[in-house]
């Protein structure tokens, strides 16, 4: 379970302090999904980085599985905007990087995950040789390689064309249902939030505060995009963002 209590994040020194997040509270049961949506630069990535253990909160607490988050953890994986691939490493090396860092490689490797994501034939390629969609899939393979309990995603599908984006959203959905990790997605895309979040938190402009919480219980199917419920949630989110 993820618990965030009165989270406040500040940057800079005392005389030039910028408050990015102020008093954010939420919790997420294990295996559920949550989307954080808000205007660009509002501080939603800061919330995600606090969950990833990359930022120390100025005030408040972040707990995963009952223990406070004090740094990056093995059971938490983060997927960045551009998939976070290292250009000098091949697909195989990128996918296995987390395992290498934890000392699990070569006893364990990401071969089966790469194969299941259709990347088995491009193991020796470098990221520059891949399409954007393939790069995102390699990022996913890396995140899955350590079998995380929590998957954090920071606008993972930004700058993709609509069809590729939808295809990878479908893939996220399939993987989330198969592996049952808790999913926290940061996005500024209304449709993405409505498609992947069982619960959607709308944040204010900086400093990020919770503006409203939208329940989205009917999500979880690929065809949800065509449903009336999906359109209703999207409209609700649009109105909340504009309010």
């Amino acid at each position, binding site marked *: 379970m993820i618990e965030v209590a009165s989270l406040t994040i500040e940057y800079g020194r005392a005389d030039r302090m910028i408050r990015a997040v102020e008093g954010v509270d939420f919790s997420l049961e294990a295996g559920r999904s949550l989307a954080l949506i808000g205007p660009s630069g509002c501080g939603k990535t800061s919330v995600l980085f606090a969950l*990833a*253990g*990359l930022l120390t909160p100025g005030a408040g607490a972040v707990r995963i599985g009952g223990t406070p988050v004090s740094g*990056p*953890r*093995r059971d938490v*994986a*983060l997927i*960045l*905007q*551009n998939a*976070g*691939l*290292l*250009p*000098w*490493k091949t697909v195989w090396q990128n996918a296995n*990087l*987390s395992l*290498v*860092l*934890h000392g699990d490689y070569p006893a364990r490797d990401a071969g089966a995950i790469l194969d299941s994501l259709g990347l088995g034939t491009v193991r020796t*390629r*470098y*990221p*520059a*040789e*891949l*399409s954007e969609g393939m790069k995102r899939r390699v990022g996913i393979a*890396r995140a899955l390689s350590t079998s995380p309990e929590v998957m954090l995603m920071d606008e993972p599908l930004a700058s993709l064309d609509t069809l590729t984006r939808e295809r990878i959203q479908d893939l996220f959905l399939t993987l989330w249902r198969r592996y049952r990790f808790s999913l926290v997605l940061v996005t500024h895309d209304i449709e993405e939030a409505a498609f992947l979040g069982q619960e959607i938190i709308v944040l204010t402009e900086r400093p990020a505060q919770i503006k409203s919480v939208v329940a989205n219980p009917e999500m979880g199917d690929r065809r949800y995009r065509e449903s009336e419920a999906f359109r209703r949630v999207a409209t609700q989110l649009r109105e909340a963002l504009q309010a």
Partner: protein
Amino acid sequence: MTADRKSRMRAMLEPIRASARFEKKTLAQQVLTYVVSFCILLLIWQIASMVINAMSHNELLPGPYRALSQVVKNAAELRRHFAASALRLVAAIATALFVAVPLGLVVGRERLLDRFLSPMLYITYPIPQVALILVLFIIFGAGNVTMVAMVALVLVFQILMSARGAAKNLDEDHITSVVSAGASRWQVYRHVVLPATIPDILTSLRVSIGLGVAFLYIAETTIMSNGLGFYIKKHMLFARDLAFAGIITLAVLGLILYLAIDALEHILCRWKHVRRKP
């Protein structure tokens, strides 16, 4: 041709072959480019020699044919001096890389260290290193150690500044990516900082080679009794064609080093030369 000779020939051509692969040219095209450039250079040299000698009514600048014939005639002696200079230059490059790369990367990444060391670098960088040759001479005496230290000192600053700059300007997403995956500080250097900065380090090394050769020449003319600098200086006044044979050999040494760096870049930075997805 014996198998041994064939394999030696293959080894000699490898840097050119590797360089050709970078530029997606065939080996033949690449060799042809070098041959054409060399011929143009010889032509310019020949014209300059004719003009200067005609104007001075003297044999001030020997033509390329005479210089090249001296290279062939004095091959054994030139090879000995070439080996001495090459050894010093390679030792200096290795020393400079060993000192400057780790230091530059750490200074570039660690803010506290940067705050203290950067002012020192800015103060010492503009000091002409050649001014320190006497100090090195007093410390190490007249010998190879002084030579290597002298050239290494020149290269260290260039490479250090370049490594520092490259480490400072890394894509922070790459760092975040590995830190979030649980990388220790050492692993960040091993998996991100070093591989990301290698292209810049090699570029600075490439730029510094010319400077290194120049300083090697100055140092060898000053305190050594062998090496190409010594050979060139010895013959410059009374046997200029021999001096120019030495200059050609020095140029060959530089060329070999450039090609070696190109080949090294090809091996270490293969990712830079892949066919990019449009």
